[in-house]
């Protein structure tokens, strides 16, 4: 399994993207941005359709571009209208998906490869994607780890972060644009429909067992790593789409963490009484 080049690429992509998503996911869940990342990923469908429309064989660039556009559009609408965030997200999500579907329906001939982008495909990770993913991993990983404190403070209170000298608006924009890029690049593995799961399930599994933020981040990254790598290998073994397999592997760990959390609370209750 490890000798085939496409598998090596997929494993490397999972090794880099899964922990990155899990790390970002800790902040995504704490800041209630899960629906936001779902909107970004669905926006990528329009980017993929545009790529095909322009005759590109690899639509990664328009996919990332459209995801960034969707993220900026949501931020702009949030800052310049009185609309609730949920309403804005629903409008942008349905608008970009509809645009993408209409564009795809206008293309001549059958477009079977769209399935890859909807559900994820090991074969969809090209050598260029791996190069982009390595660059993204280094820049975003270093960026997040050196700004953990500012991001934690921003998540606790934007006002207190401002008083402590954190550049709140700049960091908010940077975080959202980073999220958009990581989501777009993870679509190869997980697909548009399921990509948010890698941002939500590892932090959720880690939360049950964590007593502080340090544990939460560490466990979340571990769950993401095991889920990403385990899911890819399992998907190869049983010849199933890799997106759903990664998700189910993460969910299995989530269920284990729930059971472990339940056992721990029972033990604590027994010790207390």
């Amino acid at each position, binding site marked *: 399994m490890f000798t085939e080049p496409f598998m090596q690429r997929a494993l490397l992509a999972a090794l880099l993207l899964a922990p990155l998503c899990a790390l970002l996911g800790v902040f995504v*869940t*704490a*800041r*209630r941005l899960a629906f936001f990342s779902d909107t970004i990923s669905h926006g990528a469908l329009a980017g993929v359709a545009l790529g095909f429309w322009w005759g590109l064989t690899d639509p990664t660039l328009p996919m990332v571009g459209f995801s960034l556009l969707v993220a900026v559009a949501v931020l702009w609408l949030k800052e310049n209208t009185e609309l609730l965030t949920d309403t804005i997200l629903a409008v942008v999500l349905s608008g970009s998906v509809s645009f993408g579907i209409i564009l795809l329906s206008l293309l001549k001939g059958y477009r079977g490869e769209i399935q890859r982008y909807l559900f994820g495909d090991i074969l969809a990770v090209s050598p260029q994607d791996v190069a982009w993913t390595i660059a993204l991993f280094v820049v975003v990983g270093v960026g997040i*780890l050196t700004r*953990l*404190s500012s991001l*934690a*403070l921003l*998540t*606790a*209170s934007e*006002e*207190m972060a*401002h*008083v*402590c*000298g954190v550049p709140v608006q700049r960091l908010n924009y940077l975080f959202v644009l980073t999220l958009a890029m990581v989501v777009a690049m993870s679509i190869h593995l997980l697909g548009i429909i399921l990509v948010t799961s890698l941002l939500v399930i590892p*932090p*959720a599994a880690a*939360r049950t067992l*964590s*007593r*502080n*933020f*340090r*544990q*939460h*981040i560490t466990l979340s990254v571990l769950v993401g790593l095991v889920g990403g790598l385990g899911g890819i290998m399992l998907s190869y073994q049983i010849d199933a789409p890799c997106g759903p397999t990664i998700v189910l592997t993460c969910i299995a760990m989530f269920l284990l963490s729930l059971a472990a959390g339940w056992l721990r609370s029972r033990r604590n209750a027994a010790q207390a009484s």
Partner: protein
Amino acid sequence: MPASHSHSPADLAVEVRDVRVSFDGQPVLRGVDLHIPRGQLVALIGPNGSGKTTLLRCLLGLQRVDTGEIKLLGESDVRAALPRVGYVPQRLALERSFVLSVREFLSLRLRRTRHWFWRPHRVIDRILSETLVEIGVEPMLDRPLAQLSGGQLQRVLIAFSLLGKPELLLLDEPTAGVDTPGEQTFYELIGEIHRRHQLTVLLVSHDLSMVYRHASWVYALNGVICCEGSPEQVMNTESLKAAYGIHVSPYHHHHVH
């Protein structure tokens, strides 16, 4: 105690001149003047919607003013003064999934402990210890911030602010989520901190009994400063009626809404 006009600008911790703010054409602050001498514990009172929180946000540089001038600790650029300012908000809107411990939260205030992710607990505790004991947050260090009661959270927020060694402490209705016995203990703590650290404290509150006991000067706000003076002067019913627009008797009621 003369608070406002007899002090030179250098003696003032907060100087607000003719500040006006409106939202969608609706004026919220209509020419507010405020002069807080250094070292005083000053209360800003007023009914809901009177602009108290808006004024505080202006002081922190979180709200742009339409016209007027604000100086904090002698700085015309509010942001330049912020490293010397502590701020305690009404509450934190924390998600249950955000499992930041009290120790980790407090560490975020100091440059030396900001990279808590890589530091052992005992090192951080040693650096924080003095403030922890003073405010009484030591037993809570390992608890997640989101699980604290209103009173415990306010203590942690005070400790967080004091770690920055502020010259000016701004508190926005700090007892909003605290029960009545907790309120009294909290205000006593504020009074104690004010005396011990020689801080300037601006306390936004609607709790008139607290104002009467602890503040050295009171501003009553309702879009404009309706009256100012010592607690005894401002607490007469006529002055309060001007600020609150209703009849109140502060000596019999703890809260006026």
